[in-house]
């Protein structure tokens, strides 16, 4: 039956190909920072050059929170775009259940995605009831500390090799008029910072127990207490970083106004656009130099159901193009993320990306927080962290007590 369907799909695809009309495929995403735009440009370039179709860019700035309601409205409003970015995981479950997203299983099987996508958890996140609904395009990890070599030189301290050294160097940085830790105001940056501290200082098991199993006892325990103490240090060190966006914070590191920033590997793209060289101008410490692990979250593209055969054809071609080796390399080099397949040549990658690839190869990986928590729990947590990182009157103990409450309620 399955084989029959595959054959049927192939013939219709073939027929469609012979009658191929160029389709305009509208692709929505929220990639609008310098590095992000350059990366998505690689997709568009490949799509326009290698197929007869035409990429219509539907960028929506302001992050997922602004873009997602637009995307969801359009899909349920019956006027869907050709393809759209989502963070995979639990965000799209309901749209898939409602039958609004195209089933990509045939392409996935024909091209053997199962064997080439590494780590397999990425494809699992796209799979619902054994059917594949999205194309993972990259691996992003959060656990990076980016340090400005110039800032430490100016303060007269050696560039730290781990979190504790960084905390110890903070007074000297301050004395030199440098903000030790850059942190933007957006809520997700605050929770991201905390979660990185949690994974690296308390370890991956603690992450699994707290977010995975929602174990309130562990959340109330001494390991997490230590994380909150570190967060208190971070709160002190971030004073003076009056910026909103993450890349403005990154820019503080690039220009040496701040000593460092804890941010995902996408920050790499900004250093690259600014023409900085890893190891020379800036230093990256995966796992904060404490615990070399990386999480494997990432972005994925979904293809809403569409009746128009030309559009369907274009969707198919874009899906397979996105996982193809050349496009993966070109895209991820620009984006600063890791490719979703292990069989591509990343000789062009810089030091930081190579570190990431090594960790990936060694298997020190953990699921992304998005894959463990619902967005709902994430929002409650980020409300807490945002408050904590901005209000010095909240003690680490109080914050932890509220943290335990949220974990106990989560599902």
């Amino acid at each position, binding site marked *: 039956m399955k084989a029959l369907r595959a054959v049927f799909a192939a013939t219709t695809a073939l027929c469609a190909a012979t009658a191929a009309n160029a389709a305009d495929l*509208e692709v*929505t*995403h929220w*990639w*609008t*920072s*310098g590095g992000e*735009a350059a990366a*998505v*440009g690689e997709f*568009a370039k490949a799509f326009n050059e290698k197929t007869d179709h035409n*990429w*219509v*860019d*539907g*960028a*929506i*700035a*302001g*992050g997922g929170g*602004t873009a997602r*309601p*637009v995307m969801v*409205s*359009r899909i*349920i*409003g*019956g*006027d869907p*775009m050709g393809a759209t970015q989502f963070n995979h995981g639990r965000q799209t479950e309901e749209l898939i259940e409602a039958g609004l997203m195209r089933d990509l299983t045939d392409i996935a099987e024909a091209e053997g995605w199962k064997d080439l996508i590494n780590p397999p958890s990425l494809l699992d996140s796209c799979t619902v009831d054994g059917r594949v609904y999205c194309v993972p395009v990259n691996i992003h990890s959060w656990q990076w500390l980016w340090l400005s070599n110039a800032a430490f030189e100016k303060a007269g301290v050696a560039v730290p090799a781990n979190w504790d050294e960084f905390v110890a160097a903070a007074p000297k940085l301050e004395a030199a008029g440098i903000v030790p830790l850059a942190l933007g105001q957006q809520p997700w940056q605050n929770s991201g910072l905390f979660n990185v501290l949690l994974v690296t200082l308390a370890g991956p098991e603690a992450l699994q127990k707290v977010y995975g199993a929602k174990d309130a006892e562990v959340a109330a325990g001494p390991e997490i207490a230590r994380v909150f103490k570190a967060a208190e240090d971070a709160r002190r060190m971030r004073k003076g970083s009056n910026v909103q*966006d993450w*890349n*403005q914070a990154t*820019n503080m590191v690039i220009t040496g106004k701040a000593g460092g920033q804890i941010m995902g590997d996408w920050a790499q793209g*900004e250093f690259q*656009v*600014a023409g900085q060289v890893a190891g020379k101008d800036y230093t990256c410490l995966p796992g904060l130099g404490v615990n070399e692990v990386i999480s494997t979250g990432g972005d994925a593209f979904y293809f809403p159901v569409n009746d128009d055969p030309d559009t369907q054809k274009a969707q198919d071609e874009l899906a397979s193009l996105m996982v193809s080796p050349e496009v993966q390399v070109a895209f991820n080099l620009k984006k600063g993320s890791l490719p979703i397949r292990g069989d591509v040549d990343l000789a062009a990658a810089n030091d930081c990306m190579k570190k990431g690839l090594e960790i990936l190869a060694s298997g020190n990986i953990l699921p992304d927080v998005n894959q463990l928590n619902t967005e709902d729990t994430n929002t409650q947590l980020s409300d807490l962290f945002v408050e904590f990182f901005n209000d010095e009157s909240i003690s680490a103990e109080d914050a932890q007590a509220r943290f335990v409450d949220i974990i106990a309620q989560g599902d």
Partner: protein
Amino acid sequence: MADTDVLPNNTSTGLETSGPRGPRPRPMLSRRNIILYGTLIVIAVYYLLPLYVMIVTSLKGMPEIRLGNIFAPPVEVTFQPWVKAWAEACTGLNCDGLSRGFWNSVRITVPSVIISIAIASVNGYALANWRFKGSEIFFTILIFGSFIPYQVMIYPIVIVLRELGVYGSLTGLVIVHTIFGMPILTLLFRNYFVSVPEELFKAARVDGAGFWGIYLRIMLPMSLPIFVVAIILQITGIWNDFLFGVVYTKPDTYPMTVQLNNIVNSVQGVKEYNVNMAATIITGLVPLIVYFLSGKLFVRGIAAGAVKG
């Protein structure tokens, strides 16, 4: 507050000299005038300050902005930020600035303004002159509706538009603007028509004019001032709308405000405050011009009865 002191002061002086009516000749430099105009000028400066900052910032280069003083006039005037905001700023892959959105905004605003005002004026007329059982209840619901946060309505309206088959089209967006403009416009028109002398209405009825006849031949010609108010309010509201524009249209038809949001929120490297400010002014230009040209009519229109209960 300085201005509260001004009023009693000037009355007492005014009373003593009060003779025949009409504008009294006043020496330009009287104490009263100095206080009055002084206060007004201070207030005017406060209100103009943000506009000044926007304009000045948009004419500076980034290095100059980084030096810090936002109130200082530009040392070197550059129009590059304006060019960039209009034609070059990028969102994702589209690097054509605001220019893309301008005509879209026009195409959205013109029909939305016309249709929403046509409907609301007839509604207001019916409510004022042809009240029927329950009409005031619907009106109360309408006013109540103006307190509902728009965000709550997004999903249900998506469903309504989908069922009507107009989701994603210009028609759909016009309907949405008509709906959300209705409460305040209906209130304005109703209050205006209530203030029209009853004799006129009665005379027309005696002459045998009906609902539409009276509306077209008597009410419409008389209500130019309130139409001006409504047009100004709607142009401003619809031109400045971001939420509906982004949710109920698609990239080809995105209005200018969506592009503005995209430019302002797409930080590529350093935040280019000068380009942001230029983009902001360009986007606000249409409603600003409308206000500068017709501010007088606006006040006159409101005074002509819009605020009478």
